[in-house]
């Protein structure tokens, strides 16, 4: 039965691709990039560095505020006694000052309080111009004036080789009972609240961070980092962002109310292409046990390569998850080899693009906005679970994806030219070899806190359409070589073992018969030009000049299915 179904699918898919090729040859639509701005960056050596481990011993510096003593009194007894001992040894009022006086492997223990780092908000002599500059500064400029754009900066490279040699393995840890006991606030005055730049081994734990103009936590060109038990909220753009970094873990985080993404593992490690590094790690960035909600996007990553997101919840965003190859200037294009498994991706129907929000965002300066009225910085299709826009060799496996009113999943081609690729032979180098395997669609688990991802059980809570694909099968071009040198002849985009509610069929566009079963059908086809065309007008969105572009239906909340 399965064989005959495979055979039938193959015939139907072959017919479709022939039709698609005919359409392409007929010239129906002849082939003609959450992104962010940064200095030119380079990936760390994946065979150096490793995921940092939490440390409870070694050199430490203790930071506290004037009201820490009273805050400690409110803590449960065991934590209270621990903090009282630390308070007796507190010598710093500023986290940045403690970092400045730290060497490698130092733990910065931050006692309960609100940290606004006022002493670093005014420029020291010689830094006046850089404090006014909101553009992409060089690493050397950050070294010269660490707090020009950053409330707190950990800068680890002193000799310009992009490898940490000072302030490495810095651990910044809140000592309260929960992340909310230590709050670091950018007060909307700095682009970044915490910047870890070439800061190999940095470990951030157990605090809350809010109100950045760009990133609440920003990890850049860093080999080994960990963001553990952090609440990040109210960023104008990103809650936690890593870029051109490796061996990084985001875990137990709560990321909310950011104008772009709650978590953003952009320009993920690119060298592995699905192969393990010297330590045996296939994935260089891990995101686990996080909740990302009420952002424009729960998780996104332009060139989000080599990233594994598992056991997370992405919910109540406009779109739950995106990964893409459609913005220029990001190293590691095109996006490839990431994995999403055992996540709950649900109820991503929050419309931040309606007329009321458009007017509010247009008329209310950032400094005066209600932090829970998010103003989107980029456009996304409201009501979408997980969108792969120009990605290759990704795996979406054993997730519960439900109550996304437009589409549970979306997969479409992104022409290489849109990311600034000038090699015309690569124009169809996305999207290929993406696998959707054993996902449970349109089903809300009975107990969201205790989900068995090996089964598909729960209450019906449908997606608009479970699987949406533009029907394009890209070419398997080797990224590092000019032209399109194909390196695979067996795999294609594929769907296997996915389940609908209560054993019923899942829904899809195209119909199920046109979704190749794994390993897919590795024959180039340009895709459905009508579907592709409906995406294009959305590129003309502008929050002020063109908030509702004709032809783009992304900003209308879909009817609940």
């Amino acid at each position, binding site marked *: 039965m399965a064989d005959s179904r495979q055979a039938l699918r193959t015939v139907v898919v072959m017919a479709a691709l022939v039709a698609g090729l005919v359409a392409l040859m007929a*010239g129906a639509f002849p082939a*003609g*990039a959450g*992104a962010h701005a940064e200095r030119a960056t380079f990936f760390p050596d994946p065979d150096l560095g490793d995921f940092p481990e939490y440390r409870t011993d070694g050199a430490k510096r203790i930071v506290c505020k004037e009201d820490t003593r009273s805050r400690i009194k409110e803590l449960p007894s065991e934590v209270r006694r621990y903090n009282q001992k630390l308070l007796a040894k507190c010598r710093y009022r500023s986290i940045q000052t403690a970092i400045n006086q730290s060497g490698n492997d130092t733990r910065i223990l931050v006692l309960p309080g609100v940290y606004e780092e006022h002493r670093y908000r005014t420029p020291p002599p010689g830094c006046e111009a850089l404090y006014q500059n909101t553009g992409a500064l060089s690493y050397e400029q950050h070294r010269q004036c660490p707090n020009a754009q950053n409330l707190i900066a950990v800068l680890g490279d002193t000799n310009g080789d992009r490898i940490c040699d000072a302030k490495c393995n810095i651990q910044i840890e809140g000592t309260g009972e929960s992340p909310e006991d230590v709050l670091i606030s950018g007060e909307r005055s700095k682009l970044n609240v915490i910047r870890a730049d070439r800061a190999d081994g940095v470990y951030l734990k157990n605090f809350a961070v809010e109100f950045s103009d760009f990133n609440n936590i920003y990890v850049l060109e860093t080999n080994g980092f960990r963001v553990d038990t952090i609440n990040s909220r109210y960023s104008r753009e990103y809650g936690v962002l890593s870029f051109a970094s490796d061996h990084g873990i985001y875990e137990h985080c709560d990321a909310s109310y950011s104008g772009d993404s709650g978590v953003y593992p952009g320009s993920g490690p690119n060298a592995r292409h699905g192969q393990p590094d010297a330590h045996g790690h296939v994935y260089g960035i891990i995101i686990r046990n996080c909740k990302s909600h009420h952002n424009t996007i729960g998780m996104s990553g332009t060139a989000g390569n080599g990233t594994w997101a598992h056991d997370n919840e992405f919910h109540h965003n406009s779109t739950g998850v995106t990964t893409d190859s459609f913005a*220029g200037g990001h190293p590691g294009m095109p996006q490839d080899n990431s994995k999403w498994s055992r996540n709950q991706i649900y109820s991503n129907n929050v419309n931040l693009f309606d007329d009321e929000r458009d007017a509010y965002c247009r008329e209310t300066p950032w400094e005066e906005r209600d932090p829970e009225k998010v103003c989107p910085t980029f456009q996304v299709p409201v009501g979408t679970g997980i969108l792969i826009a120009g990605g290759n060799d990704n795996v979406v496996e054993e997730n519960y994806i439900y109550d996304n009113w437009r589409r549970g999943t979306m997969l479409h081609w992104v022409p290489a030219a849109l990311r600034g690729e000038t090699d015309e032979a690569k124009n169809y180098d996305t999207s290929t070899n993406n696998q959707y395997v054993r996902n449970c669609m349109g089903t809300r688990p009975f107990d969201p806190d205790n989900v068995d991802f090996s089964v598909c059980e729960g209450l019906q809570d449908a997606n608009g359409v479970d699987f949406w694909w533009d029907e394009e099968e890209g070419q398997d071009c080797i990224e590092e070589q000019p032209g399109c040198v194909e390196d695979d002849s067996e795999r294609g985009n594929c769907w296997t073992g996915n389940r609908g509610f209560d054993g019923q069929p899942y829904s899809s566009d195209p119909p199920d018969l046109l979704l190749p079963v794994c390993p897919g059908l590795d024959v180039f086809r340009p895709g459905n030009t*009508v579907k592709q065309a409906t995406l*294009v007008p959305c*590129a003309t969105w502008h929050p002020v000049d063109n908030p509702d572009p004709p032809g*783009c239906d992304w900003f209308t909340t879909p009817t609940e299915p």
Partner: protein
Amino acid sequence: MDAPRLVLAVLLVALAGLAGGCGSDGDDARNQLDWVDTPNVIVPPALKSDRILRGDVRNDSGDPVRLEASKVRVYDARGRRLKASATFAAGYLHSLYPPTRGPKTLPDTELERLGRIAKIEAGDTGQITVSWRERPGGGAAARIDYGSGSLRIPPEPDRRPDEDY
């Protein structure tokens, strides 16, 4: 119809012809571009009053043409302007910077990548996507004005350009 009304109607038709071109843009001497093939017009399934046109244009003018998406306009047969957007990008994409932030001016290479401008050399072709929203009870779109000329929008097969008037 009495004589004054007849005169007014004739004048209106003439005025519409001047403003809108009545779809006869291929004859306009200032036109620099022409369709390579008949462009496709799509009605988005969820937006029945919207249209998306994609097509290739050829520069037959003998001179390079620089097009700006922000200057593209769409008119109906009576010369009334419709709400419209245009891009020269081949697919969906977005900028590196959020639209209300970043540099005030971008280099042409970035503007080209973003589909905000297109430079078409003499004899070359380029792709354009124009979308518009039709007026309730109004007429179908008839003409795309790209600043230095215009392109005729093919009538929808099952609809006359003036059937909604």
